[in-house]
C-alpha cells in the first residue's frame, strides 16, 4: 500500500482541519437524543448538498454512500 505524505494543499482529497471539523461535528450532536441526532444528520446532508450544488457530484456521492450500506 502506498505511503501518503502529509497533505500540503487543497487537493481534492484534502479536508482542511479534519480534527477540528470532527470535534465540531461531535459537539453538534452532544446532548441530543437518537431521534434528534437522526434529524440533525438529515438536515446536515441537505445543507451540504446545497453547498456542493453540482447534481452529478451529488449523484456520485449518493452512489458511494449507498454502496457502503449493508
Amino acid at each position, binding site marked *: *500500500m*502506498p*505511503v*501518503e*505524505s*502529509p*497533505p500540503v494543499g487543497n487537493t*481534492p*482529497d*484534502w*479536508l482542511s482541519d*479534519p*480534527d477540528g*471539523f*470532527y*470535534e465540531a*461535528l*461531535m459537539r453538534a*450532536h452532544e446532548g*441530543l437524543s*437518537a431521534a434528534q*441526532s437522526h434529524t440533525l444528520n438529515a438536515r446536515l446532508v441537505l445543507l451540504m448538498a446545497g453547498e456542493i450544488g453540482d447534481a452529478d457530484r451529488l449523484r456520485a456521492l449518493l452512489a*458511494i454512500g449507498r454502496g*457502503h450500506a449493508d
Partner: protein
Amino acid sequence: MPAYAYRPFGFTRPPELDGGRTQAPVAIVGAGPVGLTLAIDLATRGVASVVLDDNDVVSVGSRAICWAKRTLEIFDRLGVGERMLAKGVTWQIGRLFHGEKEVFAFDLLPEQGHKYPAFINLQQYYVEQYLIERARDFPDLIDLRFRNAVTAHQDLGDRVRLGVSTPQGDYALEARWLVACDGANSPTRRRMGLAWAGQTFEEQFLIADVEMDESPFGDPDIPERWFWFDPPFHAGKSALLHRQPDNIYRIDLQLDAGCDGRAEATAERVAPRIRAMVGDRPFRLDWMSVYRFRCVKLDRFVHGRVIFCGDSAHVVSPFGARGGNGGVQDADNLGWKLAAALAGDAPETLIETYHDERSHGAAENIAHSTRATNFMTPKTPIEALFRAEALRLAHDQPFARRLINSGRLSAPCSLEGFALQTPGTAPVAPGRAVVDAALDDGAWLMPLAQGGFTLIGFGAVALPETPGVRRVGVGRSAPGYRCFGDASGLARARYGEGLAYLFRPDGHVAAVFAEPTQAAVTAAVRRALGHAPMRKAA
C-alpha cells in the same frame, strides 16, 4: 528479570550536612529527562545547578519511548543526540489498520536533508542513563544528588529556601530559582496547593513491553508505528505496536472502562492477550502497567521564583508522544532565559515569557491529545456510529483518512506571534523552530542555529557585525565569519535566497531581515531578551 540492568547511583553525603554551602543559583527537583535536560542546558551556558531526586535509579520500566525529531535536535545541542540516535530504533511511517485490513499509512518526514529522523524509539531508562552520563561531564556545574528528597520550600522573594531530607539527615539549601521537574504527581505543586483539574478519561489502557527474537512486524522487519481499530486479536478495542532496542516491543491495548486495573496488570491476564496478537512466537514479558490518563495543565507555569517544567506543569494522553517531548521543549525554552536573567543580560520578566510560550505549547498538545482520545473512545452511540462510518469510508475514500485519529504525533511547537519575536513574513516565519538542511561537506544547518543568538545569511546577503551575535553564511563566502557551501540549494530553498535569520539560543527564529543592519539586529536581540524597545533620544 528486566532486560535492562539497573545500577543504583548511590548516595553521596551532601556538603550541607557538614556545614558546607552550595552556591549554585538553580535548584532542580527531579532527575528525569526534563530535569536532566535543563541541568545540562544550563551547564553548557556556564550556569551551575543542584539536581535533587528522592530516588537513585533511572526510570523503572521503559515508560516514554517515542522521541521526536525536535527533541533529538535539542539533545544534539547538549551533546547526546548522536548517542540516542545510534541506540534508538529509527522510524517514520505510521500504518493504520481497521479489522484485518490495512487502511492507510502516513510518512512523518517525507523529505530528505535532515540530520535526525522523524522519531526514534528508546526506552526512558536509556535516555536518563545517557543524560546522567552527559551531566557527569560537568562536575563543577551539575551537582547530582540522589536520595535527596525535597520536603519543603519557601519563596523568599529574591531566592528560594529548600528543605531537603536524606538518609543521613536533613539540611537547608538556597537557590535563586527552584525548577520543579518532579513529574505528574509533583510534590512541589501539591505543597503549593495549586489547582490541577482537567479532563479525566475513563478508559483504561494496558502497556506491555515484551522481549521477542522474532519480530511481530513480520518479514521484512521494518520498524513502524502500527495502530489497529477493532483488530481480530482484540475485538472492539484499539491496539498499538512499536519496536524498541534490545528486541523489546511496546504493545498498548485499550481495556474496558470499568475493568479492574490491578487484576489486568498480571502476567496471567496479560500473556493470553499478547499471545492473541503475536501468535506462536515465543515472548517474555519485560514490564507492564495499566493506566488511565488525564489532560491537565497548570494555569501558571511560573509562581514567583518557582518554575514548573514538564509533567509537573502539564499532562496529556500518551497517543502522540507529546508528554516527554513537550517536557524537553519546556527545558529548551527555559534554559537560555534563566541563564540570561542570572547573567543580567535580560530582565527577570523574561522568565514570564517561558510561561507564555510553553503554556501555549502545552495547550496545543492537550488539544491534539484530547481529540485523539475522543476519537479512540466514543462516548455515545452517535459518536460510535460516526467513527465506524469514518473508518469504513477510509478504506476507499482518501478524504476520510484525514478524519481517522490514532494520535497526532509530536511536531515542533511554533512560537509565532509571541512578544519576543520581531514580526515578519518568511519561508520559516519568526517563532518557528529551526528547519534542518544538509550543507556541503557533511555539515548540517540545525546545529549552527542553536546554542546562542546566531545570524544566518542565506545566499547574497551581507551580515553586519553585532555584539553577542554569531554570524554564519550559507551558500556564499564572505570575509569575517564562517561560511558553508549549499551546492544542492536545499538550505536556500527552505529559507529563501537573500534572507538573514536571527535564531534564539533555543533555535527558534527571532527575526528575519532582507537587509540586516547592526541596529536592526541589536533591536531584535534586545526584544528576544525581553527588554523594552529602546527610545530614540529626543
